[in-house]
């Protein structure tokens, strides 16, 4: 055993020198994640700012003017003037000059004074359904508040909803995306890089040489993977620091839990990379398989950008086998909710199970090659 460990240590040192010698790769590996985080952290946002609102009062009166002022002063809306006549709104939507329209039926002031319901239409350009629905929500919030402030009639009942937004009071989408981005960056560094470097060695035949050397297959794998694990670790730290410095993403939970989760996820990624390298025949296929097999699911089926709950049932089931999904739950819960082991042990258990399965598979695949 001691002999094996000495051999392994020498081997790991050699592998390290190998990676360190390739300056370009190293710069890419260490610099890219922070650059990516910064770029995507800014670019990936779904907040709806600055809604272009076309406000149309079919018969202007004091009340419609008051309501218009409410929208204009809200700060979230830019008022857009609409040409008169039918078709003007469709035209404004088609040329992308307006996002949402509020159309007030005639007689607003009179109806409100007599205690009758007054008609208001809210029309959104829903070609982007998410933004459309969010804009509707903002318009509706203004209408609801305005209605609550109307002088109550005798007998009117006013129930005031007091709304609290927990875990992300400013509703900034950056707080949702940055913990997800950490998963994506880890996936790139671990799964993708390992798959590529191992399959390159396979293509060149250097791996065969190692496999017939006195080193055990597991030692070969550990030796190959250890440097990347360390790199991944450095990446996690740098990305977390950037998330905190650049975006001010809150850190409500324990850093230890987060690092443990990150390390576990990096191990899953590394073993996945080894498996991909083992089952593909050429570098190019390995690369494409890694891109399609790890990157796509990690961005699309992980809940990083799109909520898993919004997906159709079969995809929700499929999302369960995507490791990134579980890690994102860990990183979001720790960072935003301040969750700890008590809430997150299932996610840790699932990731551990995945790691055990993948590493067994990887070692067996590589051992088979010796026969």
């Amino acid at each position, binding site marked *: 055993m001691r002999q094996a460990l000495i051999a392994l240590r020498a081997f790991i040192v050699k592998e390290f020198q190998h990676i360190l010698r390739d300056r370009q790769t190293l710069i890419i590996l260490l610099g890219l994640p922070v650059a990516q985080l910064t*770029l*995507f952290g*800014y*670019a*990936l*946002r*779904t*907040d709806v*700012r600055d809604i272009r609102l076309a406000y149309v009062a079919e018969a202007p009166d004091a009340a419609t003017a008051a309501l218009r002022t409410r929208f204009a002063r809200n700060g979230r809306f830019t008022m857009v003037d609409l040409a008169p006549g039918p078709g003007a709104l*469709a035209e404004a*939507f*088609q*040329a*992308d000059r307006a996002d949402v329209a509020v159309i007030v039926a005639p007689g607003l002031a009179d109806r409100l004074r007599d*205690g009758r*319901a*007054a*008609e208001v*239409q*809210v029309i959104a*350009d829903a*070609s*982007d*359904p*998410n933004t*459309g629905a969010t804009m*509707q*929500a903002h318009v*509706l*919030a203004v209408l*609801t508040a305005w*209605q609550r402030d109307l002088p*109550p*009639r005798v*007998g*009117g*009942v*006013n*129930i*005031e*909803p*007091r*709304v*609290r937004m927990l*875990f*992300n*009071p400013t*509703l900034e*989408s950056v707080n949702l995306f940055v913990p997800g981005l950490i998963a994506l960056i880890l996936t790139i560094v671990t799964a993708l890089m390992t798959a590529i470097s191992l399959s390159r060695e396979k293509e060149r035949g250097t791996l065969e040489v190692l496999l017939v050397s006195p080193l055990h297959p597991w030692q070969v794998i550990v030796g190959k993977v250890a440097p990347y694990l360390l790199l991944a670790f450095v990446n996690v730290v740098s990305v977390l620091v950037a998330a905190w410095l650049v975006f001010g993403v809150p850190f409500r939970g324990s850093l230890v839990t987060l690092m443990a989760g990150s390390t576990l996820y990096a191990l899953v990624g590394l073993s996945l990379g080894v498996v991909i390298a083992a089952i593909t025949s050429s570098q190019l296929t390995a690369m*494409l398989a890694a891109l399609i097999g790890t990157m796509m699911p990690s961005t*699309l089926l992980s809940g990083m950008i799109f*909520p898993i*709950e*919004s*997906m*159709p049932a079969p995809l929700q089931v499929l999302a369960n086998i995507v490791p990134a999904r579980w890690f994102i739950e860990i990183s979001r819960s720790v960072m*935003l*909710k301040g*969750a700890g082991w008590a*809430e997150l042990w299932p996610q840790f258990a699932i990731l551990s199970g995945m790691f055990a399965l993948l590493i067994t598979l990887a070692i067996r695949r590589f051992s088979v090659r010796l026969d």
Partner: protein
Amino acid sequence: MRALRVLLRKEFLQIRRDPTILRLLFVMPFVQLVLLANAASFEVKESRLWVVDQDRTTLSAGLVERLRGTGRFIVVGSSVRQEDGNAALMTGHANAIVAIPAGFAREIQQTRRGTVQLAFNAEDGAQAGVASSYATEIVSRYGAELGAQLLPQALGGADRDRPVRGVPRLDVHRRYWFNPALEYRWYMVPGILVQLVTIGGTFMSALNIVREKEAGTLDQLNVTPINRTTFIAAKLIPFWLIGIVQLTVGLLVAVAVFRIPIEGSLALVYGAAALYLVAALAVGLWVSSVAETQQQAVFVAFSLLMVYILMSGLFTPIRSMPDWAQDLAFLNPLMHFIALMRGVMLKGANAVDVLPRLAALAVGAGVLMAAAVWRYRKGAA
């Protein structure tokens, strides 16, 4: 010209012989469309509501009933203690809490005023915002309804949707144009089509040229009398055609499988695609001139495409980005093409509406191609 024809034949033969490429070209559009169109959705689902009812009267039960009745909220649990609600929010079992304080009904009957607490898990701010707008609207309606019920002259139990006399309120009708059912797929599919064409054009062309570089066949061609522009044209034309074919396959799938309405003119779609593909291929050519190995090419192309795609408005709206990112995105041909496709396919925008986009595509294609060819020739010299 003859040289170009001969070279083109060679290229087509090579592509035909490579089953992976063909598979990637025709199977991928299908798989990607189906997978992406279904996965990429921000659709706001009903919220999982936890009820903390400390009043336990007909009035408080009525409010919970109203929230449930809209189909926007599913009650997943209830408790008397607020802490249980908070715990449910923490574990993710629930994502909204309604808390009705003790004395809610009494207060309403005596003072005609009341308060309820609403709390949302706002990790996903957009979803929480929409849920909260529904909830607050339901709460105010309920107030209006109660006002009518408690009025002496009220005509019995007024139902929610009947205008209630005696209480000033707005009757709001929501309309969603161009996508009344809020089908997220309608919005995503035109964008995904663009992304497919991009991956085909940029990725495949870059890899193809680099592979020749690695194999050394490129050097052989460089010492033949074929002029370089002819050579580049022969390399890119097949991929341009493949891109057009991919788009066609994708459009067929969009209409047949997803039933996407195509409101505008197909000629406009293809015209824009023809321009855009030139830009995509230029990027591929540029990648191939900076990369020495296939691995580098994949890496560079992939990093570029990632930035390209994430900053194109495909997944998240451009207008949510900070100003500097919007300016950057403006230089991205992919952004213009996606916006154009969505405008034409969903809203029926015409050539005049999308003229700025077309102009941007034409300029982008010209500049990028010129730069890529210049860089390529410099590298080969």
